[in-house]
Each structure stands twice: as structure tokens, then as C-alpha cells.
């Protein structure tokens, strides 16, 4: 659940709540007596026991083969199979040692996989929260039937009120969109022309607001998309290029 700053068609804004409404089906595993089993993460390998680390240590893969015949150099019976209650993501260098300072570079590639640009990595910062300019009601409406044929909506968040005032505010927005049978494109940033970033380093998405009402209740959904529903351009024919 995150806070989201939203404006309506009259330019009024309010901070409300947004919740991811993906509902994974919960699967449990039970034994023959109907008792529930639990899953645990266990250690299967460490970097010192990988094939290339063993080869570097032994002087080559043939020597590792000889070690494998003679014993179990790839096993550490003290550690392998132990539970892994918590893990921390780290970077390791080619020598398999922990790295404490890194430099991150974004390599931009085109659809053919050709490198176009290298630049220092920039983490997108969230731009939808209560301390950010409100998401702008751009007025750009797209009929619902057209929207599902134009964009792939991969994530949906439900917007809800936090008090009586914001209930009226959001119910009005839902009703307005329902009457227009359209989704509204939302824009972030001071000019309302940026894509929506929910959390630091998150994927920037185009946001589309959908409203439905039933009696005194409403459902205001924020559909997120970073992909158009269209055919990819055909790859250039290398033979044709050669002829040209």
C-alpha cells in the first residue's frame, strides 16, 4: 500500500491510498495425514565450490575430474543443505570476492541488440507520493474497449479514500469516468508529462484510471502499462542489406 497524490478534473488534489490488488492463489502442500508441510530455502552451492572456482584452485578442469574421482571436493557437508533464513544481495568480482564499491552503467541497446549508448545508471525516483506534485488529470480519455486493444495492462492498483472528504472526491472521479466509459491517462511530475514510478528504482509506467460505481460504493482502478499491444517491426533482412 502506498500513498498517492491525485488530482481531479477540477484541479483539486488529495492524498489517498493505492493498493496492489494482484491476488495470487495460495497453494498449500499436505502429507498423507492432511498435515501441512512447509517450504524452506536450503544452501545448494557456494561460490568456492563452483566448477570454475575448483578448476582455478586445482589448476584446470582435468585436475578437478581427478579430484572428483578421488573424493568430494564439490561438497561441504558442514554447510550444504543448511537452512537459509535470510539472504542479502551482494556483488562479487571475477575472483568471487565480495565487492564493497561498485559503479553501475546502463547499456542501451536497440531492437537489433546493437549498443546505442552507455551512461551512469540513474535510479528512477518515486513520483506519485504525498510529497510529490499530484498526478495530473490530463483530460486524455481513451474508450475502455480501445484501451485494452492498444496497451498491455500488467499491474493494477486500487485507489481508495482515507476519510469522508476523500470518499466524495474519489467517488466523483469514478462516476465521471464511468459515465464517459473511458480510461483517463494520468501524468506525473510538475508538468504532468512523466510516467509513474511507484518506488525507488521501479519501472516507469503509463497510468490509466478507470472508474466504476455501484450504489454508494465505487471502484477506482489504476491500470499500469509499459507495453503497447502491437506487432514488432520485422527484423531487417541481412541479405537485402548486403545487396544495397
Amino acid at each position, binding site marked *: *500500500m502506498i500513498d498517492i497524490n491525485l488530482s481531479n478534473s477540477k484541479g483539486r488534489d488529495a492524498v489517498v*491510498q493505492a493498493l496492489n*490488488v*494482484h*491476488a*495470487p*492463489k495460495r*497453494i*498449500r*502442500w*499436505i*502429507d498423507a495425514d*492432511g*498435515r501441512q*508441510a512447509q*517450504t*524452506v*530455502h*536450503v*544452501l545448494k*552451492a*557456494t561460490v*568456492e565450490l563452483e566448477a570454475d572456482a575448483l578448476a582455478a584452485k586445482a589448476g584446470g578442469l582435468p585436475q578437478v575430474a581427478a579430484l572428483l574421482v578421488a573424493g568430494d571436493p564439490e561438497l561441504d557437508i558442514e554447510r550444504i543443505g543448511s537452512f*537459509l*533464513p535470510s*539472504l542479502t*544481495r*551482494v*556483488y*562479487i*568480482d*571475477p575472483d*568471487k570476492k565480495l*565487492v564493497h*564499491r*561498485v559503479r*553501475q*552503467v*546502463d*547499456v542501451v541497446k*536497440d*531492437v537489433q541488440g546493437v549498443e546505442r549508448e552507455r551512461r551512469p545508471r540513474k535510479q528512477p525516483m518515486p513520483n506519485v507520493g504525498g510529497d510529490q506534485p499530484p498526478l495530473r488529470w490530463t483530460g486524455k480519455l481513451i474508450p475502455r*474497449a480501445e*484501451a*485494452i486493444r492498444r496497451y*498491455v*495492462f*500488467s*499491474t493494477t492498483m*486500487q485507489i481508495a*479514500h482515507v476519510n*469522508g472528504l476523500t470518499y466524495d472526491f474519489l467517488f466523483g472521479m469514478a462516476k465521471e469516468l464511468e459515465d464517459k466509459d473511458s480510461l483517463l491517462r494520468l501524468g506525473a511530475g510538475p508538468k504532468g508529462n512523466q510516467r509513474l514510478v511507484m518506488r525507488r528504482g521501479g519501472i516507469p509506467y503509463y497510468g490509466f484510471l478507470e472508474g466504476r460505481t455501484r450504489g*454508494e460504493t*465505487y*471502484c477506482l482502478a489504476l491500470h499500469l502499462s509499459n*507495453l503497447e*499491444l*502491437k*506487432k*514488432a517491426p520485422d527484423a531487417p533482412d541481412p541479405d537485402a542489406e548486403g545487396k544495397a
Partner: protein
Amino acid sequence: MAKPLVLVHDGTEIPLQLEKVDRTKLYGWVETEVHDDKGRRCDMAQLTDDGRTIVPRGGRAIAYLSAQGMWCDKSSLAPVDAEGAPIVPVVSSYAAPIPLATPATVDDVLAHDIRLAYRVAPDAGAEALAAAVRGGAIWTFPYSFRGGLEADQAFLLEGADGHVFLLVGRPCAFEYVGLRAPVWADEGEDLTDDDDLDFGMI
């Protein structure tokens, strides 16, 4: 050529090849390279809580423990849902032809998070496929690529560019909310009430 997904519409079998709609093919992509002080490429790994054991990619496995905390073989376990009802595994959607029998609405599509999108190209029966989605018709059916515990929901529809697409998604848990709806709690918030400890559990 890959085995086709076969749909049946008005008695005509339509074998389809699926081409994934992929961001990399539409817009290109960005790879993040990580370098150390010496400019060498670094890999991501995981550090265990002993502070010294480094787990490489693929160095972690999932194991199953019985109610008594003993190792158990997954083949001795059965999957059930949250209410304890057995889950019947689904077969691959490629195992048999799928009849287009259930129409869907725009609301149905918008009530799913779409995790895969494919452009479909018929090996045969192109006219039958065009007829199936004519006039904005949308068809839905359960879809599973290789079979498993549960199927996703697929929607067959015509895209704005005139091509036919198959969207594969999972339902969202929308709900209508009214003035008296409870305010959602922050997931990180500790809702334990210290005055309400159940000592009977100890």
C-alpha cells in the same frame, strides 16, 4: 516449427503460432553492468547471515519439511487450496484443441493483470480466426503452457492495429468500497496489540 495452439470456432480448427509481444523487440532494452574499482565486471550473488558464505546464482534450493520438521519428498505431498480443497492439476493447453465457447467483456480483461501477450498467426483457418474476433468479440479460456497446478486466463481479441492477440493474465482482487470501508493498513505496520496477548498459546 513449434507445436501450435489449436482453437476451435464454429467447428473449424484454427492452429495458431504465438509470437510474444516483447518490450525488447518493440523498444530495445537497457542492460545494467556493474564494475568494481578496477573496472572488472561484477556478478550478483547472495550473502548468508553468517556474513561469509556467498551463494551464487542457482546455489539455493527449496526443500519441504513435514509438520514434525523432517525432510519429506515432494511426491509424498498433495497440493490443496487455502480452504483445504484438493487442487486438480491442469494439462497443457497444447494437448488438445480448445473450443472458443466463452465470450468475455472489456470489464473481464480489465479485471486481470496481463503477464504475457502474444500476437497470433494462424497456420490455417485465418478466415475463421478473423470471424471469431470480428465486431470486437473477445473470447476467454483457461491457458497453461506446459500444464501445472493452475491455469492462467487467456483472452483472444483483435488489437487496434488489426492483428489478433492472445493476452494471458491473472485476476485482480478488486472490490467496491463505500464510505464505511476500513482504511487499509500499511503492510509494514505492526498491528499486534500488546494488551491482547494470548498466553494460552505459550
